[in-house]
């Protein structure tokens, strides 16, 4: 078993007299990708906040490995138009130096964007800049809140490929949250289906057949639990250009 990075044990969170999370247990290990899916309002964001230490559970415990470094990619970044901010300056705010910033931008395929204004980026480009900021923490654990939100399908594929790649290169764990119920990243090691409590969990192939999943999302969803797989003869790079398949992936 790989080293445990963060574990939630029967965590219950109540916000203004409403139970948002009930007896949720979750284990994140180095090198593993856990994807949490669930409908809107299922408590996914709260779960992320508990994992980040921003929300304290009412009951239950959160245990993190000593010296755990978390790289966090927030769901949305709204920058006021009144704030002039370049990509490089934004990354600097995480406390990183010039060379580290250049390296992180290169890793997410945004090498030449350092001088661009943050507000001028497309949805997908902004997501990758946020990912670069998370990487600058030299994380043991990446926490990604809806990483492919506002990204087109080809971009999503590229993003998932990048995340799988980063997981190997940085040898970190990944906790990802998605509201997309029938499309999870193929390389996910574990899918957790959340609706205030954990409905079911397991390897992606098993979750779609789980009766609890079918009750929650209906059998039609269950049948269409499409997994992202590499069946195409070409790919799109992060900027949407077609790249001939060179046997990778």
């Amino acid at each position, binding site marked *: 078993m790989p080293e445990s990075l963060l574990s939630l044990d029967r965590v219950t969170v109540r916000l203004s007299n409403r139970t948002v999370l009930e007896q949720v247990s979750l284990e994140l290990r180095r090198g593993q990708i856990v994807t949490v899916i669930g409908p809107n309002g299922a408590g996914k964001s709260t779960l992320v906040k508990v994992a*980040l230490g*921003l929300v304290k559970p009412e009951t239950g415990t959160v245990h993190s490995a000593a010296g755990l470094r*978390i790289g*966090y990619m927030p769901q949305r970044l709204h920058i006021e138009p009144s*704030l002039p901010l*370049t990509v490089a300056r*934004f990354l600097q705010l995480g406390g990183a130096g010039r060379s580290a910033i250049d390296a992180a931008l290169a890793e997410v395929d945004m090498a030449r964007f350092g001088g661009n204004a943050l507000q001028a980026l497309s949805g997908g480009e902004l997501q990758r800049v946020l990912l670069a900021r998370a990487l600058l923490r030299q994380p043991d654990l990446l926490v990604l809140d809806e990483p492919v939100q506002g990204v087109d399908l080809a971009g999503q594929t590229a993003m998932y490929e990048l995340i799988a790649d980063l997981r190997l290169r940085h040898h970190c764990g990944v906790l990802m949250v998605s509201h997309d119920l029938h499309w999870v990243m193929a390389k996910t090691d574990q899918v957790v289906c959340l609706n205030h409590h954990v409905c079911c969990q397991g390897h992606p192939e098993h979750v779609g057949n789980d009766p609890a999943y079918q009750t929650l999302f209906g059998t039609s969803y269950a049948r269409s639990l499409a997994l992202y797989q590499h069946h195409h003869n070409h790919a799109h790079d992060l900027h949407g250009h077609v790249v001939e398949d060179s046997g990778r992936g």
Partner: protein
Amino acid sequence: MADFLLYALAAGLVVAAVAGPLGTLVVWQRLAYFGDTLAHSALLGTALGLLLMVNPWWTVLAVALLVGGILALLQNRPHLSADSLLGIISHSSLAIGLVAISLTRLRVDLNSYLFGDLLAVGPADLGLIGLVGALIAGLLVRYWDPLLAITVHAELAAVEGLPVVRLRLLQLVMLALLVAAAMKVVGVLLVTALLIIPANCARPWSNTPERMALLSALGGAAAVVCGIGLSLWLDTPTGASVVLCAALAFVASLTLRRLVPA
């Protein structure tokens, strides 16, 4: 040059120099109305000072901090929108201040509190304004990056280890200090103008936050110089003249930006 003019210029320049950068933070965080509320509470602070017979400086500062604290506590009430809450506190504290000042039965010049009395700044006032200005400037330089980080994304900053609540408190203290200092210059009703107008003058000419902060300070300083000149020339109220010059600079900034390609 007459002494009173030198004092007025120096006090105005100090306040403008720190209001500029602080104002950019206010603009980026959409705190203009919050600044207004703090400024209005300063009148209540002044009244308390007169009643308790202590230097209004301290009571203005105390009331501004208290109001900031109350606002923080009352935030996120489901049935009270943020702008309503600010409006209620802002106008009530102004009203209480007006009533309290009249109850002191002192013959005070209300206009000088509402609209400032820059030309009446003396050596003692200037010393205090200089001290407060230096303190705010030092804090801004020291904590600029963390303050910018919580402006961009508070939760991200918290995860990265910044003490978000304490930084917000620091920001409140700096704003309260500025309100106390700026009261003499432009008065409680016009303080917010010194915060937001220079910042917005600077925006079209800035591609980094630091440049915007610097240009904002320069713009505010220019407005102070022109405003004092205008006030002497046409015998108009000084605070209002300063704000008028800032507003003209804003129009000029936008117009010039259209004419001059980036």
